[in-house]
């Protein structure tokens, strides 16, 4: 049996469904429900059986013909974008929607190669301001924004 990416992923799924199956058995149900025909454990158990069966079959039967080599892709760029999204999530509450979103957009554009200041500014501030106006002003969706509150733009 040769190792390929599909087999590795199938093995990970197999482990996932084995752990899932174990955790499904550990779900605390009410005492009167323990021996019921159907309780909170039943459906997860069925899912785990299905998952174990199909991931095991994939593990055994896969020949990895359609696998693409992983080293040809832009891992670093995606990872940096992932970190940017993550950081955006961290600062959005403390800094506020307007500033954090503009920062996220400006840094992302710049990282992906945009160098024109005109493009950088036109594709960030007006877009964010427009969306925030639509949500806040037109659709009545309140977005807490300490920065804009500090500036007195929103109450």
């Amino acid at each position: 049996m040769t190792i390929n990416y599909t087999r590795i992923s199938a093995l990970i799924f197999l482990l996932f469904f084995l752990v899932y199956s174990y955790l499904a058995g550990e779900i605390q149900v009410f005492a009167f429900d323990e021996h019921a025909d159907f309780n909170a454990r039943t459906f997860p158990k069925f899912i785990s059986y299905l998952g174990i069966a199909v991931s095991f079959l994939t593990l055994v039967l896969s020949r990895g013909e359609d696998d693409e080599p992983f080293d040809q892709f832009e891992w670093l760029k995606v990872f940096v974008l992932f970190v940017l999204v993550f950081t955006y999530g961290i600062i959005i509450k403390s800094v506020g929607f307007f500033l954090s979103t503009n920062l996220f957009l400006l840094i992302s554009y710049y990282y992906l190669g945009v160098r024109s200041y005109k493009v950088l500014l036109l594709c960030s501030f007006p877009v964010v301001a427009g969306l925030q106006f639509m949500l806040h002003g037109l659709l009545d969706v309140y977005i807490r924004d300490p920065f804009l509150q500090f500036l007195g733009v929103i109450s």
Partner: protein
Amino acid sequence: MIEGIMIGVNTAFSGYNIIMVMMGCFAGTIIGMLPGLGPMSAIALMIPITYGFDPASAMILMAGVYYGAIFGGSTSSILINAPGVAGTVSSSFDGYPMAKNGQAGKALAIAAYASFSGGTIAALFLLVAAPQLAKVSLSFQSADYFALMCVGLLSIAAFASKGQFLKAMIMTAFGLALATVGQDSLSDITRFHFGNINLMDGISFVLLVMATFAMSEAFMIIFKKMDISFKASDVSKEKLGSIKLSKDEVKEMVPVVGRTSVLGFLVGVLPGAGATIASFLAWGFERSIASAKEKLKFGKGSIKGLTAPETANNAACTGSFVPLLTLGIPGSGTTAVMLGALLSFGVQPGPRLYVEQPEIFWSIIISMYIGNVVLLVLNLPLIPYIARILAIPKNILVPLVLFFSVTGVYLISFNSFDIYFMAIVALISLVLRILNYPMPPLILGFILGGMIEKNLRRALLINDGSFSFMWERPISLTLFIIMIIIVLLQIYQGLQKKQN
């Protein structure tokens, strides 16, 4: 029924909802045009905008986005041979050669007229078929619903997997497993939350859709170094040429429209099939019945070759609303996203929808017709201008898609945890997509998970824990036989592939 239709007409023709259709068609065309971003991403990106809307208007907007995206996909297929949507791949077979021969405008006009005709005929079928099916489905019991949902899951795994049925089934099981996170609907017991308060309510459907489609698609564009931008001159008005069709060309189109709209609608109604399969089938069907002389034209700019998939994919889009509206079971990945959106509005589609909320049921159906008119009257003349969106470079587009995805999820809960979780899910789905694991079965499994559990629970409790309901009720039995046939077909195909 007449009263319901009148309510629907009233709702759909209100000024507000007509603007919704126009906005939906316009936004859908733009997003559908961008290679990689299909109707599912387009609808997912629209969900946050619809929060403040009433359910009917939101669904009208999303339906507009759906067929707008299909129309936009055809445009990029024809102009630059880069289908934005899988359902329009076969449109490029004859559309792109026509564009290369200097007939891009004509090809776009054929696509628009064919889409309009296919969508309109299918909307009429829907008008007749949906209430009938809704009446039939009133006789469905829990066991039948359970069986029907299993057929839906199996068939979407079979059709969406491109020969990777086992991988699609893993994704189905994964989606079902994710659906069990959070509170059990009957006993209120929380499951798989690992002490994290953010998981006690379960995983948000919008989060999952945004992460697996919109965000992972944006990552994919960077990850695969995809060159998605084109020169503005490639889609200029001068290069498109005339959009007028001659009488002979219209004559050639008419019988094809008639045949393939029926075919497309029927394929769309089937759970798991949809626009992609319908368009390929229609192209293949028209080619097989064409004369030897006409057959040679297919793939080189045949009018019939372009009309067939364009009619069928729009008819299938409309057809896929039949199981969604009448049974509450989505027939495709896109309608699965719409089902999730409906559920988040507190609307439960199914046989009762057309009795209890006729304004939603009928206004969606009638808005489809308005949408087809909008696409023909507004979008076709504007195509040279809309197509300039293709000139947006990826380094601008990707951050914007990421921003809209994050905003969409943040606006539901105002919870930073959802953003972290979304980024992680997007990264995982990116890796899974590279390994050819299809995403639609995951979404369908996730959306149907709760309903399957509820119906299985009822069926088992009624039958004292026995699975005999599978063969005791004729509807269930038929559906389980269909399931067995689907599985056997997949095994047969797998064996055949191995032999080859």
